[in-house]
């Protein structure tokens, strides 16, 4: 085994929650959803939750057929050597590429809101260095750090929402479904990628310390995700109304509006804290998946040697892939089908294939 650490079901659920929430609730997603679904974004969130649970079930069912293998390993068993290698490579690429979005976005956001004159690469190296340290220390360490980070981030998020409460206006949500249901679906579409990030579980399943009650991971984490997401989206819309569509990161914009008793103002560093710690977990998780998948794909005995090159690769890619922030947004929408294919369709195909060809056990399904 490449990884000796074991994580509990709770730790796995926590990782999934932070991974998904870090970009969706406090990141760019509320704005992207709002641009399409306007005041009905919350319906999109509910739809997305259903989607997330369905995809999560597929991924877990697939993974639990091979409870001691990752997708890179069992893809070969299910489809044969060459197609399996190709699928494995697809996932290696996927984990690398998807990670560049939050990294780059993190840099862009920090620059825009906090330090406009600082070069991008400074932020990227900072966050990747921290993630690399965690990845080198292993899955257990990421999971444990996240056990501190997630409650802290949720607390900060809730505090921010409470502080914004005086400025919320319920009328921003009316009328419901003003332009029909189509915009809601459109809003759902742009976020499909992020709600299927449970895909990281395909790399974690072999390292769970129990094979029992794994179904709960998906369900419980999506309950939390859904609630937090609603809190984020609802409070942003309630505070900003139609402004939300023009603002790439409505949550941080809303945070700037906090003004309590002329004493607590401009709390956005709190937001930066939230953003740094949450993105750190997300980046670490994908970084780890990438490194582990690569090591397995190449049949290496150790993944630690890959950490450094992977970090350099991530940094370089995050810088060169997009020229400016407009590029980044465009790509995010354009690439949705491809990502959804890797995250949801491919696991489904593998699951069906595994069932038909009778590969893997059904053990662990409760």
């Amino acid at each position, binding site marked *: 085994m490449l990884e000796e650490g074991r994580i509990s079901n709770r730790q796995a659920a926590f990782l999934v929650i932070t991974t998904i929430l870090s970009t969706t609730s406090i990141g760019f997603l509320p704005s992207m959803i709002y641009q399409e679904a306007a005041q009905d974004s919350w319906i999109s969130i509910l739809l997305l939750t259903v989607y997330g649970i369905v995809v999560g079930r597929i991924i877990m069912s697939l993974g639990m057929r091979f409870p001691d293998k990752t997708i890179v390993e069992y893809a070969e068993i299910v489809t044969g050597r060459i197609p399996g290698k190709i699928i494995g490579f697809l996932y290696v690429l996927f984990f690398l590429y998807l990670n560049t979005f939050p990294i780059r976005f993190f840099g862009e956001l920090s620059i825009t809101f906090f330090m406009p004159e600082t070069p991008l690469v400074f932020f990227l190296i900072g966050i990747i260095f*921290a993630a690399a*340290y965690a990845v080198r220390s292993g899955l257990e360490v990421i999971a444990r750090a996240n056990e501190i980070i997630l409650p802290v981030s949720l607390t900060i998020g809730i505090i921010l929402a409470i502080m914004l409460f005086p400025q919320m206006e319920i009328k921003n949500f009316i009328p419901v479904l003003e332009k029909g249901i189509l915009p809601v679906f459109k809003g759902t579409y742009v976020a499909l990628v992020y709600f299927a990030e449970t895909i990281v579980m395909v790399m974690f399943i072999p390292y769970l310390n129990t094979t029992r009650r794994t179904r709960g991971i998906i369900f419980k984490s999506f309950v939390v995700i859904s609630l937090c997401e609603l809190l984020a989206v609802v409070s942003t819309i309630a505070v900003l109304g139609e402004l939300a569509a023009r603002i790439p990161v409505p949550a941080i914009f809303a945070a700037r509006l906090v003004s309590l008793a002329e004493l607590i103002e401009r709390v956005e560093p709190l937001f930066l*804290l939230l953003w*740094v710690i949450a993105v750190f977990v997300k980046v670490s998780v994908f970084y780890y998946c990438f490194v582990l998948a690569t090591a397995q794909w190449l049949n290496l005995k150790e993944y630690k040697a890959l950490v450094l090159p992977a970090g350099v690769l991530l940094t370089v890619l995050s810088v060169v892939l997009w020229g400016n922030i407009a590029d980044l947004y465009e790509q995010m929408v354009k690439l949705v089908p491809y990502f959804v294919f890797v995250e949801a369709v491919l696991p489904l195909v593998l699951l069906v294939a595994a069932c038909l060809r009778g590969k893997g056990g059904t053990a662990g399904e409760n």
Partner: protein
Amino acid sequence: MARNVFRRLLSLGRGREKNKSFSTCTSPAGTVKLSRDLAVNLNMIRDTLGNSMDVVVRELLVCRTRVALVYINGLINETALRENVMRALMIDMHNVEPSPGSGSKDLADSVKEKVLSIADVKKIGDFRTVLDGILGAGIVLFFNGEDTGLILKLPGFETRSVEEPHTETVVRGSREGFVEALSVNISMLRRRIKSPDLRLERMQVGGVTQTDICVAYIKGIVNTKLVDEVKKRLQRIDIDGVLESGYLEEFIEDAPFSIFQTVGNTERPDKVAAKLLEGRVAIFTDGTPIVLTVPYLYIESFQVSEDYYSRYIPGSLLRMIRLLCVIITAELPALYVAITAYNPEVLPSPLLISMASSREGVPFPAIGEILVMGVFFQILREAGVRLPRPVGLTVSLVGALVVGEAVVSAGLVSAPAVIIIALAGICSFVVPPQSDTNLLLSLFFTILAGFAGFFGLFLGFVLVLAHMASLRSFGAPYLSPAAPLSPGDLKDTFIRAPWWVMTGRPRVTGWKNTRRAGVVSSPSPPRNEEKKPAHRYKVDE
């Protein structure tokens, strides 16, 4: 990678002697048997111990046999020697019937059984034990014509009396603190835990110093693997001398390169008892009042014994205050730097303007101010600690008031910076086990904040958090019970739940025997006359 470089540097010093261990003495000793000839034995002693001025050899005649007493002056109880040994041998001996020396028994046996009114007497035959006995506060009796001697344990050296520990004073709770003598310390522990399951295993470390150490644990509560691991690590220690438990700590800790301590220490017997009851292992070292406890978790530094003795509500409040203080110590200076140099908008305007006005004309950047004042504060503290108390007070007074005031009024440092450093400094004393760690963290964060503002500061948090998450102390995750999360054990972290709620031992150390208290509901005045049978808590097994 830095760690590897460091390791390499360290290994340079070790050189070629790696395989050579420090054995006891360079002299004949070994497993040499005692001779029947008294003179030979005494010569051996003289050869081994040299002409040390404190070695006393007293020869006398007992029932026509030459007998020699060897002991080290000052280590033994002189009164007892006079009354129970010398007197017995020289006077009482003659009243013993049948007269010693006759019959089949050795003189040594007769003396041991009939003459010496001392509890701890052992027969010995080899020279190694003789030496250990003499050096370990014993009197050795040699009998001419016999190849066995007697060793009389009569420790009587000067020890400090039991006092209130200086490092961990409490308002409510035991006033006893450990002293330097191992036996006294162990007795204090034994007095608190009257269970037959309390195990005290003696070991010796230090090739030259032959320091006694004692591994204490409660059988049935402790995880036996943990005990084995502790003993294994202790046995691995190969050093000439152990003068303080700190030597052991550095040899057995899990993360020698970390700034976080992963071995706990205390000089309070009640605290050791509490740790043992949680399933931990304590290591006593002769010659120091500081006892080590393992495994050591981060949260333990917030747990003060008084929390458990005073009422739980103020106890919980104090826990949170301690946490706040740690945050202030480690992060306030960095926050100051990040705010003033990068993101001043977070301050309310009036505060910001008044800070700006006090910074007017200060020659250093914020980070310079903080570092200079921080170093200054540490110098003051160090000077105050090492000096005799009255002088120390003067130093702190002069330093704090005169220099601090002068520095501000001269415009070298702004007043807020002085306030920040003073506040952080005071807060660092609230959680003593962490004060050094927090100092380093504070420096680390301040430098990061100086280079990259809030981003640097938060990145520092993440790095430190990841580092702490990677630490383990004797198998226990350092951040437990927060990470890995063990919800039941959060009762004794940020708050201190009432005792009748904390019915289970902390899982991470006490999972072998989880039940600690029986009552689940809160205490209440009796509703009816009938009384519940009293519970008895005993360690099973």
